[in-house]
């Protein structure tokens, strides 16, 4: 990206305290790759114009600033992740220049006061103040891309006719058994396959999901698919728990495998009493794909509990 940002979360503390920050902005037509795109900071898309503001006085000469790219679902599904500004980037929406997860804040611009605009200087000071309270914040470790990556391949084709994602990247990111079910490598075929299977894809569970070139390979969870329980949904977890407490059946076995597969081993019940476990943990759980597709303790709740002690 260059020296600019947009989509600022202006009601956030980093723009308000201790320094109230006002960024002069320039209304700018959307980029071609903004068409139809949405992001955390643009849940309804960019619209007719978007407001560009300058963090640095001019663009880096023959150089660039990095952004954190989240439109491929890499790491922002962590509860409490804060997307606070996007960078002015050739990439489509979702390239973050200001963001926080746990006790880590990313500032995508210079920190050199010679380069920073006045409002950016004030914002940087605010960021430091904001982070002062984050020593106890819980950071969760990134493990794998999310299954949103496949949606990106569909979107890229819609935007530009790009087919390589559907024809090459997608097949190479599936384990052989799952790849066998993905036979129609056309845009329509990919869309139909994902419509049926995407909520049941998972990765991050073992060496079978590793790929040297693509880092992660995804597997179709036939247990969850048969039960009709998308792995990220709370009702699915509760269905698995209900089956686990029911009489022996094939569905019960499927549910037990799902519980073992998706409930983080750090919090599984040691006595096998899933009902009692859920009563205790119900309000503390969140499903996170990017940590390895786990139902795990919500880092926001852990922070609150730590603060209350």
């Amino acid at each position, binding site marked *: 990206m260059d020296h600019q940002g947009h989509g600022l979360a202006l009601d956030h503390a980093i723009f308000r305290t201790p320094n109230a920050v006002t960024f002069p902005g320039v209304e700018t037509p959307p980029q071609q790759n903004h068409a139809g795109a949405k992001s955390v900071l643009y849940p309804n898309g960019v619209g007719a114009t978007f407001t560009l503001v300058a963090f640095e006085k001019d663009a880096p000469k023959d150089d660039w600033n990095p952004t954190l790219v989240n439109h491929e679902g890499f790491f922002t599904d962590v509860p409490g992740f804060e997307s606070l500004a996007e960078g002015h980037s050739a990439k489509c929406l979702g390239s973050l220049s200001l963001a926080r997860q746990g006790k880590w804040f990313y500032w995508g611009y210079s920190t050199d006061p010679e380069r920073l605009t006045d409002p950016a200087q004030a914002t940087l000071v605010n960021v430091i103040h904001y982070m002062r309270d984050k020593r106890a914040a819980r950071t969760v470790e990134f493990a794998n891309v999310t299954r949103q990556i496949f949606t990106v391949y569909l979107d890229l084709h819609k935007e530009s006719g790009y087919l390589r994602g559907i024809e090459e990247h997608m097949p190479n990111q599936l384990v052989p058994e799952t790849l066998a079910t993905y036979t129609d490598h056309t845009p329509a075929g990919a869309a139909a396959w994902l419509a049926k299977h995407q909520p049941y894809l998972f990765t991050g569970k073992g060496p079978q999901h590793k790929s040297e070139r693509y880092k992660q390979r995804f597997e179709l969870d036939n247990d969850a698919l048969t039960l009709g329980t998308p792995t990220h949904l709370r009702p699915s977890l509760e269905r698995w728990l209900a089956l686990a407490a029911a009489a022996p059946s094939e569905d019960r076995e499927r549910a037990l495998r799902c519980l073992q597969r998706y409930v983080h081993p750090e919090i599984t019940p040691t006595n096998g009493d899933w009902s009692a476990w859920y009563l205790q943990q119900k309000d503390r759980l969140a499903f996170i794909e990017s940590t390895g597709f786990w139902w795990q303790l919500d880092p*926001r709740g852990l922070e609150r509990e730590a603060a209350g002690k």
Partner: protein
Amino acid sequence: MTRSAPLAYSLAAALAAALLSAGLSAQSSSPTLTVKGMPADAPLTVTASHDSSTLRITADLKAGWHLYGRDVGGGQPVAVTITGGVFAAAGELTTPMDKQGLITGKAVLTLPLRRTSEGDTLAATVAFMVCDALQCLPPIELEVRTVATSAPAPSGPFRVLLVAVDDGERTQRIAAFLLARGLTPTVTTYALVTSELCDANEVVLADSPTFNQVRGKKINARAFPKTQSPVVATGFLGTQVLEANKVTMACGYI
């Protein structure tokens, strides 16, 4: 891996006199809240405080008495409503209750906040019924409000560790900028930074020139030490620091 002792030095002594008077900083504080409306004979005490992100209600109940954390068909569960000030609720009230939905002993209830305008004032009501095994007392509604006094003065220097590529002119300029804003910077380099040095500061600012300015230089930002302190990771080297700490993934940036 053993590291050499940090070549850390504080710029405070050199620059404080000249720059502190120009400081723009106002440290964040945790305003005290008054709690009014508790009946004198109630079997509990309630105190409250908040910061920029959370309202904390601390209830301390006498033995045998409880509040309700959720609706269990008994007494009225605890409800917290923001009624004024510069904050709004940003989520649901979290109540530390047992399996039966009861809150007993000393418990901290938390409500996420988001700031809606400048300042630190907050007003809220806390409504509940307190019960024992035999009875519930009449509903109680407490008024929680910011103490009408100025925020406490900063209790000490706000220590920021500036981790830079070197201690050259750019680094000195950034350190002077921090000092002028009321922060107390200590400067070190990526080559010398240690966990102990990071942990001794309240915030770590990991600086980075642009990509082409660091390309080809041996700056091992990926070896950034583990730390308990919050870190503001900046620019290209910042992405390497984040990746090394598994906050993001490699290639997750451009």
